[in-house]
């Protein structure tokens, strides 16, 4: 029957438009321009922006966010979404904290934390891929569930609690010291490595092509022998693990954790991915775009904080940027349509 998968754009003309405007090239170019703009602004306005430590701090502040944005990119590419990322981050951090609190040594604690992330992702995967439930609804549910579990685990406890041993200094060091001889924070490097992996997988491998197909037209993908469910399932598992990893990094970076860690970050992650030019309907977008988007948001935050701009204003700017990012590509079209309408009158 003529039901469309929830995707307005197999209407050919919409397609033509998106193909034209959302065409990666144009989009990433636009982002590069914006990024340069932000950097110039920062350098001009804030005396401390060009300070070598800025880059390190930037890594500290957005590194874990950026890492969560990568699996989110892949998931959005397949036309789904994962709003539970920040809760998984909090949950894995809490698990790590609890085990540490109970005297475990770091390695097994980290492993278990990652495992919990995988399980959380698997739950999402089963409900979305296997049971076929709408991911936005499911992951709102697991968002609540995972955060709740974290609260059950740690409750009012902040680890390390008074009297606990501190997390190993060698590891918590990632929060205070850049990689020796550089100004790169460890999270930055980890992010960049993961980004390269994601980019190659998404843009150069059969698996990546499959993700595109799934995002554009799941049924056609299935009829081409693409294991739609399986791929989606594993994407959620990967997302779970990666977000758990981000949770561990954040915990070590802050050398402490409480159950609320990262509350509400899911929407920031989504915002970063969308600003990176990934279509919310799936099938379109690039990892490069997301990397640029991360850089823009990070640099902007640094500059504005250094300039002591009210955080409220920062919110406004974030939102405005996101709006512009979608309005600009469609603006031309809209004007065209309006002209048409006037002509007809």
């Amino acid at each position, binding site marked *: 029957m003529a039901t469309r998968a929830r995707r*307005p754009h197999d*209407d050919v003309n919409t397609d033509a438009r998106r193909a034209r405007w959302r065409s990666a090239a144009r989009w990433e170019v636009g982002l590069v321009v914006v990024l340069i703009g932000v950097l110039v602004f920062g350098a001009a306005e804030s005396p401390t922006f060009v300070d070598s430590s800025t880059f390190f701090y930037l890594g500290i502040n957005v590194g874990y966010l950026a890492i969560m944005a990568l699996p989110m990119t892949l998931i959005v590419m397949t036309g789904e979404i994962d709003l539970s990322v920040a809760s998984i981050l909090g949950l894995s951090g809490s698990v790590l904290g609890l085990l540490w609190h109970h005297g475990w040594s770091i390695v097994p604690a980290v492993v278990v934390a990652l495992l919990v992330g995988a399980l959380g992702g698997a739950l999402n995967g089963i409900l979305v891929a296997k049971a076929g*439930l709408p991911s936005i*609804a499911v992951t709102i549910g697991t968002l609540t*569930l995972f955060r709740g579990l974290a609260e059950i685990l740690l409750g009012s406890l902040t680890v390390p609690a008074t009297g606990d041993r501190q997390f190993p200094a060698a590891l918590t060091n990632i929060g205070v010291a850049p990689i020796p001889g550089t100004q790169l924070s460890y999270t930055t490097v980890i992010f960049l490595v993961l980004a390269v992996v994601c980019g190659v997988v998404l843009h150069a491998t059969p698996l990546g092509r499959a993700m595109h197909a799934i995002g554009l037209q799941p049924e056609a993908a299935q009829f081409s022998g693409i294991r739609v469910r399986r791929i989606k399932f594993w994407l959620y598992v990967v997302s779970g693990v990666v977000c758990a990893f981000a949770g561990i990094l954040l915990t070590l970076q802050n050398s402490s954790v409480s159950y609320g860690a990262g509350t509400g970050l899911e929407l920031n992650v*989504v915002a970063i991915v969308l600003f990176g030019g990934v279509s919310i309907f799936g099938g379109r977008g690039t990892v490069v775009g997301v990397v640029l988007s991360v850089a823009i948001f990070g640099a902007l935050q640094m500059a504005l904080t250094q300039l002591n701009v009210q955080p409220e*204003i920062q919110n406004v700017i974030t*939102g405005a940027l996101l709006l512009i990012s979608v309005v600009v590509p469609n603006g031309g079209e*809209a004007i065209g349509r*309006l002209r048409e309408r006037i002509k007809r009158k």
Partner: protein
Amino acid sequence: MTTDTAVRPVHRFESLLRARELGIAIVIVLVVAITAVRNANFLAAQSVQQLLSGAALVALLSVGETMVIITRNVDLSVGSTLGLSAYVVGDLFKYQHIPVLAGFAVGIVVGAVVGAVNGLVTTVLRVPSLVVTLAMLYVIRGVDGVIVNGHTIDPSAIPRAFTEVGYRTLFGVPWLAIIVLVVVAVAGYAMRSFRASRDLYAIGSNPEAAALAGIPAGRRVFTAFVISGTLAGLAGALFLALHAQVDNSGGLGYELTVVAAVVVGGVAIFGGSGTVVGAALGALLLNTINQALVASKVSSFWNMAVAGGLLLAAIAFDRWLSLRVARGLKSARGVHRDV
């Protein structure tokens, strides 16, 4: 096809549709019953009133959200809108001493304006509403913050007559609940009975076909957003009436709660089907769960986890139901049309 093969599934289908709302209602009753067993006091008039007024705001938001979601869009800005409207109203009470009714009017206007912006950007520029309203979520909260600027509206600033709406009852029903019930009833009826509202379903059900059918999709979707914003604005005023205080955090994070309520209420997240009554019941269910947990003396650490689990259960249940419907139809069509 022969009439009987055609008709049977229909009756089953419609009854199931009805059961959709019924199902949630039953779940609510169950939750209340189970809690009452552990704590008879949960059935006291007072706590029933609390269940209603506690759910009122989210229910109100979910009505507008439903209309938007039915058109295959979403409005993530409702929480921020509520916060902004609440503070603006409070601010006017505090410094301009505006009359009580004006308070509600202002709230509604603020909401309508936000809704109009959402609607315009979404329809005129054809931008996915999730992105638009996500952006607006930040923008509005930021603007709100700039206005609030660390101040707070405290009870003394708000006219008694205004806050009374938050707690006075009529025949034991809180005014707050009555207002929301009226909105739900009106909206619920309208969504069934008018061409424009059926258009909303059509648009969400198959946008391309809607265009071919000459439905003014832009105007309809715009209207849906304006309604959603308006109700969010009204909710803001009621928020102020209920809490008699507000700072920058009013309605923080409501958006996901509302979407959750709508989904639990059986509205298809990708549009085309669902009812505002269901959504309102969804809101009531979520709130009932929260209060039941505290009332049955579960450690408050468990609230979130249990709420999340139940949410997932509700979604799964909904799925199971619609699968039953589909199967009903398929088996009915199993016989080919007589030649």
